[in-house]
């Protein structure tokens, strides 16, 4: 008994379910993958019952799924033999130039979800402390959603029902894209860093999508031992304007005591593609999590970060930089659950919205009874650059402990006419002034990146993009 839905939505759902069944048929005789088969089955069951969320769901109020249903998606093709996917898709290193930082990284390149040996580099920097497993049955089966300890309720309503909110051992992962990811789980990437190990070079995971009307279903797991430290750079890019792809990524990050993880999340798909990404982070005592999300592309994207501060003194920092233009819809949401005392969380989310684009931000800070001395702060600032741009935000607090300092701030508006005047009075052209102010506004979240090489590189990349910012036809208060 699946719920009512429009025909194209049903079509997509059924197509995805068939793919899942096909995977199961392929794996049914493989004893090593028995667990995986059962889990795909369970996820399909869930999906069948819930169907697609509608705007009536609190979490989907501002984000309609229509663009997803515009055309059907099939799972991306994988090369039959052992050929390098770069060869099949005709991707060369030169084409990746824009995505490659000027500093050394351990670079893993995937083309349509398949590892490309020829494009990857810097692998000799991998030492014994770092283990990278790909597409291994055991490793994939180890991706259990049960590991999402402490996460109580992704979907609307379910969490409201649980009172008092306390980190529970029972995961309640009920999100349609989690189910889809689970249902189509086949390849995966597991990265483990041994206790006390410090990885000097950043790990670069570059996902290139090239196939039209294909879904790339990604699952990544990071596990950092106690006091381990590493930085990684996630990139999801399409190399041309052509393919309409959909990337559905689920990441699980588990940080041991005192571990330090820094993530850069760079989403730059073309203007037809779709992106859905969820990252679950489970933090032990005194661990640190820092993430910067750069949402630059995609016709329709939704990224969600769920951080559970489960150990005393843990620290989480989440930042978003989103430039939304054309017909884009960019939805960024975070949920930060403080489950232990003395934890800190900091967030800065900045959106520049222009043309007919829509930006959506939703942030929730939850503080459980036990989480005394919590320090949580969330800021959302939005710049609207055209009369048809739209921004919907919902910064939320849900607090059950009394000795806490929690706040959120949120502001939306256009560029201050005084600022433009100030620049113009000093001989700066109006368009240039707008660009300057927009750049300064948008780049702020990057300031907290400690590695200067990384920071400068990203600064330059975003600035270059913004240089293409068209002359604005409209700005109230300084009509000419």
């Amino acid at each position, binding site marked *: 008994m699946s719920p009512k839905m429009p025909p194209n939505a049903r079509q997509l759902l059924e197509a995805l379910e068939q793919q899942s069944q096909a995977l199961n048929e392929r794996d049914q005789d493989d004893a090593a993958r028995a667990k995986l088969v059962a889990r795909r089955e369970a996820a399909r069951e869930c999906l069948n019952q819930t169907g697609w969320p509608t705007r009536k769901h609190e979490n989907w109020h501002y984000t309609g799924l229509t663009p997803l249903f515009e055309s059907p998606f099939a799972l991306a093709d994988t090369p039959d033999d052992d050929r390098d996917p770069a060869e099949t898709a005709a991707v060369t290193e030169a084409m990746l130039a824009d995505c490659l930082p000027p500093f050394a990284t351990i670079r893993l390149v995937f083309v349509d979800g398949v590892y490309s040996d020829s494009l990857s580099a810097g692998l000799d920097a991998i030492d014994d402390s770092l283990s990278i497993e790909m597409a291994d049955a055991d490793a994939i089966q180890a991706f259990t959603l049960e590991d999402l300890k402490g996460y109580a309720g992704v979907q609307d309503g379910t969490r409201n029902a649980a009172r008092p909110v306390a980190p529970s051992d029972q995961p309640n992962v009920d999100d349609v894209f989690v189910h889809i990811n689970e249902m189509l789980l086949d390849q995966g990437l597991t990265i483990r860093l041994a206790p006390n190990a410090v990885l000097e070079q950043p790990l670069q995971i570059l996902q290139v999508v090239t196939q039209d009307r294909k879904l790339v279903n990604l699952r990544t797991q990071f596990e950092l031992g106690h006091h381990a430290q590493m930085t990684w750079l996630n990139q999801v890019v399409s190399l041309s304007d052509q393919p309409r792809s959909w990337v559905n990524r689920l990441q699980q990050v588990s940080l041991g005591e005192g571990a330090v993880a820094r993530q850069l999340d760079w989403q730059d798909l073309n203007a037809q593609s779709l992106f859905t990404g969820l990252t679950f982070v489970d933090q032990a005592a005194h661990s640190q999590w820092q993430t910067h999300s750069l949402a630059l592309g995609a016709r329709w994207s939704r990224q969600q970060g769920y951080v559970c501060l489960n150990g005393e003194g843990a620290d989480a920092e989440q930042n978003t930089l989103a430039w939304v233009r054309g017909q884009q819809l960019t939805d960024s949401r975070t949920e930060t659950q403080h489950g232990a005392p003395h934890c800190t969380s900091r967030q800065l989310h900045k959106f520049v919205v222009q043309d007919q684009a829509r930006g959506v931000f939703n942030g929730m800070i939850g503080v459980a009874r036990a989480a005394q001395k919590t320090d949580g702060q969330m800021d959302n600032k939005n710049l609207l650059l055209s*009369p048809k*741009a739209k921004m919907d935000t919902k*910064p*939320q607090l849900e607090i059950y402990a009394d000795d*806490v300092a929690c706040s*959120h701030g949120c502001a*939306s*508006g256009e560029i201050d006419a005084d600022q433009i005047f100030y620049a113009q009075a000093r001989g700066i052209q109006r368009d240039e002034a707008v660009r300057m102010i927009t750049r300064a506004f948008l780049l702020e979240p990057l300031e907290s990146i400690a590695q200067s090489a990384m920071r400068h590189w990203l600064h330059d990349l975003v600035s270059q993009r913004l240089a293409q910012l068209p002359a604005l036809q409209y700005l109230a208060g300084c009509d000419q």
Partner: protein
Amino acid sequence: MTDATQYQEINDLLSKNQHYKEGFFTRTAVETFEKGLNETVVRAISAKKNEPEWMLDFRLKAFEHWKNMPEPHWAKAEYEPLDYQDYSYYSAPECNQCAVGEDEPSEQEIDPEVAKAFAALGVPLDGSGDSDVAVDAIFDSVSVSTTKREELSELGIIFCSFSEAVHDYPELVQQYLGSVVPYHDNYFAALNSAVASDGTFVYVPEGVRCPVDLSTYFRINEAKTGQFERTILIAEKGSYVSYLEGCSAPVRDTYQLHAAVVEVIVHERAEVKYSTVQNWYPGDEDCEGGILNFVTKRGVCEGAHAKLSWTQAETGSAITWKYPSCVLKGDHSIGEFYSVALTNRRQQADTGTKMIHIGKNTRSTIISKGLSAGHSDNTYRGLVRILPGADNARNFTQCDSMLIGNQCGAHTFPYIEVENPSAQMEHEATTSRIGEDQLFYCQQRGISEQDAISMIVNGFCKDVFSELPLEFAQEAEELLAVSLEGSVG
């Protein structure tokens, strides 16, 4: 004292609930409908009030619609689905009831017990006192008295009960009833439209500045009855009125339902100040009884430069579900919302506002102070929507929460939707508690802990109380102190 023996039972009950001094029960002859809700009941209510056909049609239409609506449970409050058949939808003191429908309802006919009740609540019904307030007193389903009417009518101001307005000013009522909150607006508004009991009707003509504060006092007396008042307030061009609202109910061990609808229409350059001190019975320590306060309040600033200001002090009710809203249609119109919501014991409050900016240069301010103590939950839920046409709209929102004790919860759920780039909106929310050093500072100076808390809390709420009319501000401060008693051990 015969009274003492007569009310022994009630006194016993009261001694358990000393914090709620309005919790007494008035024993008087009443006419109460049988429990249950169906079309016959709706028709009977209408017949009882001798209503014209259009009013009955309005009720029936609403009732038809309501039957097909699901009960909303999205608020951050837990309650079992209500059994709407287990309430009585009409109750009135008999003595007064006989006056309704007659040509000259005179004040002598107020039931003495009812008058005593209002006297005990500090509500003057004789209108003789030197108070600057005109009062409409509503007891269960009917309005029992409206004071100072003559004085007001000289100025052309209509201040009467809703039932009277239906008879005396049908054109006005027909014009405005359901114009701001249509009968199909939401579940409780639909229910209210179907079974609306009584309420207040205020009409201030063009250019008139109402010299006294208008006030309504609501009292739910009977057990297992619902009160569904309907209030309509119309301020014509260039007029001004300040309207106050107070409420209380006896201590009962079952939930009582209060689903009111308030519609405010503010025309060009008019100003309305709407203040509420809500002190419905909040239920006892074990979460038994109390009022379910599901209220739809909305005002429209129709004309340019209109101003609507909502001020509320919410201390009572087991569950509060209330979002006084402003629809800012007129250019340069102003909406304001000042709120103090205090929850204690097992109260659950989900309250806030909606500011819908439609006109150009519209401005809105939201100041919300939430205090939670005991095992309560206090939620601010607010919407600021700036529509594409609202050039240069401006909103400022500040939501501060304070937690008193570590068993309560404070939540903030703002919704901000901006569709016009020239609009400027800011939102701030903080959560804090009473600092130990603040307490120590006071105690060191010989101020008891209880008084110190009361002082600090009043300081926290000052921004809002300063918006309340003087007498109300005092009452609100006292209420706050009483409601907080025993919350800090």
